[in-house]
């Protein structure tokens, strides 16, 4: 049954992808991208990757759609020219695809528990996590502790993107003075979205916090929570106008979140170093190494959540402020 479902999802995905590339309307393409992301997320779920599915749904279908729409509002939603050098492009692309097909043609078998991937490193994580870290979610254990350095790097990738967008969009065009415009009313005068939104936002926030603090036990963690909380605030901004959203979380506060999360994460790393361990060694944070690991993971997940929320909202506001 799952197999049939998987084939169904993948086929839909390919059809959607073709439609995305063929359509000339960028608005349509963006919406289809959201659908494609949801299909991918569903497929990840079928493949036992609950954490990744949650992230793909929140990031791919949620945040990236918002970003595309913000950019479309500032550019244009019609693709004027089609494609160029079709045959050459097709050949280059086909060459890459052939290499991939050549590489994966018949092995290792899908789902094979004996495949090399399942035989090395991964079993160690599954076996040792109860002993060293003792949290139920192995993905969180790997992400937050065994490969915490990757995750630290990832937080700084997000941070770089955040300051990058702020840098790009803080450019003041010559002869273009920002006019003090009337506050954007958002959808304040539309009763139905407003009532529905007001009803939804608290629940979204609550769910975001649940995902943040439940990451050790179930699917979730700082990235997903950050994306969800940012989505709630963006919804608020759409309903009540951007100014109202900025009154709740001002640019300074957002900047504090952006930098603060990254600093918090690094500080946990340095704390390990100062207490006699290696960088990012949480075992030394408490007298019991297992407790230390758990504290460390909770702290760094908080740092991740802060930076992701701050960056996503800062990017949203940076795009929105350009709409004049």
């Amino acid at each position, binding site marked *: 049954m799952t197999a049939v479902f998987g084939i169904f999802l993948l086929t839909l995905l390919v059809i959607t992808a073709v439609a995305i590339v063929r359509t000339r309307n960028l608005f349509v393409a963006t919406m289809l991208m959201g659908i494609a992301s949801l299909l991918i997320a569903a497929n990840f779920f079928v493949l036992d990757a609950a954490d990744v599915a949650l992230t793909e749904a929140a*990031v791919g279908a949620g945040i990236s759609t918002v970003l595309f729409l913000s950019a479309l509002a500032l550019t244009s939603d019609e693709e004027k020219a089609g494609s160029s050098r079709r045959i050459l492009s097709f050949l280059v692309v086909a060459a890459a695809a052939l290499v991939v097909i050549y590489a994966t043609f018949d092995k290792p078998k899908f789902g094979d528990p004996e495949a090399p991937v399942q035989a090395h490193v991964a079993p160690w994580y599954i076996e040792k996590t109860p002993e060293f870290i003792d949290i139920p979610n*192995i993905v969180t254990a790997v992400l937050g502790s065994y490969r915490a350095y990757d995750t630290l790097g990832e937080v700084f990738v997000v941070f770089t993107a955040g300051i990058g967008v702020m840098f790009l969009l803080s450019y003041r065009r010559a002869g273009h003075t920002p006019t003090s415009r009337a506050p954007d009313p958002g959808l304040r005068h539309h009763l139905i979205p407003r009532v529905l939104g007001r009803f939804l936002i608290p629940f979204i926030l609550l769910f975001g916090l649940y995902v943040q603090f439940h990451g050790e036990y179930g699917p979730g963690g700082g990235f997903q929570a950050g994306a969800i909380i940012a989505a709630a605030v963006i919804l608020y901004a759409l309903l009540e106008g951007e100014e109202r959203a900025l009154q709740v979380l001002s640019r300074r506060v957002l900047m504090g979140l952006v930098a603060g999360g990254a600093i918090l994460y690094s500080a946990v790393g340095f704390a390990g170093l100062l207490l006699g361990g290696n960088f990012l060694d949480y075992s030394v944070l408490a007298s019991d190494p297992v407790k230390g690991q758990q504290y460390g993971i909770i702290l760094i997940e908080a740092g991740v959540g802060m930076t992701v929320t701050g960056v996503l909202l800062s990017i949203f506001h940076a*795009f929105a402020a350009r709409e004049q």
Partner: protein
Amino acid sequence: MEFLGLYHYWVFAVLLMIGFYAVVAKLNLIKKLIGLSLFQAAVFLLYITMGKVDGGTAPIFQTASQTNVFSNPLPQVLILTAIVVGISTLALGLGIVVRIKEEYDTIEEHEIQEIDRR
């Protein structure tokens, strides 16, 4: 099951091709970024597919009674990171496109080249 395994890899290859084609051949800058997202999504699929174990569950310990067959947590961790890297690149790319539109009043590659040549 055998067929499903290959099907996953084929979809990966096809998706990779579709995305890559859009990046290389399309002239609209936003369309290029859309293609780039698809291209990266295909790679996510490759990693997650290889981590699946038959009869396994998501790698989260639940009640003690449960069988301990888990799918591989490591590719999942890697792809969590890669998804976030992807969205960061996308955000920066869109920021650049917005600035290009402001400066050139177009987001079509060949029109920009023509303006620069003048």
